[in-house]
């Protein structure tokens, strides 16, 4: 047990762990993380399989990396705890006694004699110290008076508070990993979805994209309603940098898109030998409608692609989700047989890639199309977050104490001999010795001054 504590309290271990963590972190930024096996195969060829199995492609979540973090946590905890009792004793029950020889060994020290009785010199020194803002403790022991004057004692604990903050931060990370929950909600306008495990639902009322004058995107805004037991309880607008938080769940604007499968397509349909103008027909993919002619024809919108392209084997497919080449596959059946079947294009109204029915008596075009927008929100519940903020606050407070609030102390030993008092003084500071030197000199000067 004791050797285990010694192992974990060593700074050497901390240094080794920090170097290992830094090296592993570098590696993790050189190998792209969390991609698919196919992507690795393209990049690394035959080595891809081994790479994925070794955990290097999910390095920051690999057991070895987590073990390093946990070891560092243990190291910090043991290191801090083994040093703490000594520091607490120094802060709250300090030894006041300092040998004259020890005082002379301080980096800042001085010695002087005053022809005044000890009690008077003691009184004068302590008053001067108090007036200069020092907290003074003293005791007299065997003809010698020991004085300890201190400032900013809290600074002693700066590094411990930083370490405590880091431990809280690590704990927060563990809570996030163990109990954090996040999922994506893809909501079309008007759609309501239950938030998993949350006991309330979210409805997307409207999704808006706002633009800057130069055409770039200014904002994506999802107007949502929170529903509890099917009753609206709250309305909010979620935008990037402006999440909504409700009952411990937060919702972030992540992405958006057009729900092309639910496109409302307006087709212009005309019988070639009919002099009447084309009729607008409104259809959704998969729906059919009677044309109301004598033959009892029916029109069906079989598919809609926002960006039509001929893929492998000349099969029509979507190139992107932008409406760059909108196309509709339309079929008209009348009297038990197909009168028209083919792709019609919004951008090329004269062109119909018809399948064997070029000579059909129908003319079909796309007049308009309108897909409902959907918004992708990320729903997250992370009970680790408060710990993270507490850890950050402690860490920053500790850094401030360690760097800008350094503890300083001046020790003095007074002895009387033949009606004269001999004064030895010594000062130490963790940082900011210039400042202490100035204060020390001022104190010595005030003692030298005649009464």
């Amino acid at each position, binding site marked *: 047990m004791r050797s285990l504590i010694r192992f974990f309290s060593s700074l050497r271990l901390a240094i080794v762990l*920090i170097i290992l963590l830094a090296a592993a*972190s570098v590696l993790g*930024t050189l190998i792209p993380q969390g991609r698919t096996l196919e992507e690795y195969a393209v990049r690394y060829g035959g080595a891809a399989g081994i790479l994925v199995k070794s955990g290097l492609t999910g390095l*920051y979540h690999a057991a070895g990396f987590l073990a390093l973090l946990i070891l560092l946590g243990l190291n910090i905890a043991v290191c801090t705890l083994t040093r703490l009792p000594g520091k607490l004793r120094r802060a709250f029950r300090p030894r006041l006694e300092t040998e004259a020889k020890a005082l002379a060994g301080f980096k800042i020290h001085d010695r002087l004699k005053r022809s005044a009785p000890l009690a008077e010199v003691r009184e004068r020194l302590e008053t001067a110290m108090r007036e200069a803002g020092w907290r003074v403790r003293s005791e007299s022991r065997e003809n010698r008076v020991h004085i300890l004057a201190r400032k900013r004692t809290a600074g002693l604990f700066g590094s411990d508070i930083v370490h405590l903050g880091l431990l809280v931060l690590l704990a927060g990370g563990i809570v996030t990993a163990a109990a954090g929950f*996040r999922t994506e909600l893809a909501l079309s306008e008007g759609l309501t979805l239950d938030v998993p495990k949350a006991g309330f639902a979210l409805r997307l009322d409207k999704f808006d994209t706002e633009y800057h004058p130069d055409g770039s995107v200014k*904002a994506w805004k999802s107007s949502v309603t929170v529903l509890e037991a099917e009753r609206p309880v709250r309305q909010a607008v979620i935008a990037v*940098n402006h999440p909504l938080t409700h009952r411990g769940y937060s919702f972030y604007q992540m992405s958006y898109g057009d729900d092309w499968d639910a496109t409302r397509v307006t087709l212009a349909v005309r019988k070639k030998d009919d002099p009447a103008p084309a009729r607008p027909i409104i259809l959704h993919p998969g729906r059919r409608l009677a044309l109301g002619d004598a033959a009892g024809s029916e029109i069906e919108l079989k598919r809609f692609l926002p960006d039509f392209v001929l893929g492998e084997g000349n099969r029509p497919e979507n190139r992107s989700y932008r409406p760059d080449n909108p196309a509709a596959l339309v079929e008209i059946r009348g009297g038990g047989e197909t009168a028209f079947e083919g792709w019609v294009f919004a951008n090329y109204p004269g062109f119909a890639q018809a399948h064997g029915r070029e000579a059909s008596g129908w003319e079909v075009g796309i007049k308009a199309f309108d897909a409902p927008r959907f918004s992708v929100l990320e729903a997250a519940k992370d009970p680790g977050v408060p710990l993270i903020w507490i850890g950050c606050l402690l860490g920053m407070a500790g850094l401030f104490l360690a760097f800008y609030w350094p503890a300083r102390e001046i020790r003095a030993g007074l002895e009387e001999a033949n009606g004269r008092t001999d004064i030895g003084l010594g000062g130490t500071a963790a940082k900011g010795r210039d400042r202490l030197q100035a204060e020390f000199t001022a104190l010595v000067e005030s003692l030298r001054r005649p009464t």
Partner: protein
Amino acid sequence: MTESTFFAAALAVYAAAAFFYLLFLFNGKERSAKTGFAVAVAGFVLHTGALILRTVESGHAPFTNMYESLSFLAWASVLAFVLVTLRFRMHRVGPYLLLIVIGLMALASSPLMPKEATPLVPALQSYWLWLHVSVTLLGEAFFAIAFVTSLMYLKARDPEKKERLDAVSYRAISVGFPLFTLGGLVFGMVWAQKAWGTYWSWDPKEVWSLITWFVFALYLHTRIVMGWKGRRSAFIAVLGFLAALFTFFGVNYLLAGLHSYA
């Protein structure tokens, strides 16, 4: 007068300041160094004007693309240099630091850097942009000072001079480290939580900030607890600034991630 005029003027004035400082390196006259310092301060005023004009013209913080960020890092480095010079009177730092500043600004004005002020993408529209980037880059500016003094330490021969360079490196890091921690890591996490819904996502820029932080944590622990000084500390400080520079610059061009703004 436009922002680019002020920027060019600041660059020219910094070059003049570097000239006086270089003169000081050769003739050793305190007066040349003092002139260099005064000229550098004048350049700093012009540079501040450029940043203010940029903010007014664009309507957002002056560090949203690489051109702006480089310019701001150069400005922060001069600010750190002015503060360190006033405190420690280390004139010899001047020429080297100004060369870095001129290098950063020359890089910013290269034709490869798009300079036009574009409207902010939604992810950057937050007051955290101001807090996160300015505090981080200010911290990195102090790391730049430590980088210069550490390199000078490694080159210097005079023990007394070495002692002072070592002390200034340590002081610069003890200002830079809390600033970098606050701006880069803490403010970064707060903003990430607000914008992306997660305080940490192991994005390459986040990881490299952490690596930089590790290096300086190593510097502080070996120094304060193990009593390392001088040569070994100087090496770690140099390494730390290179890591910071890679975080700032390399990640954008060599590694892909969420942080694809600047």
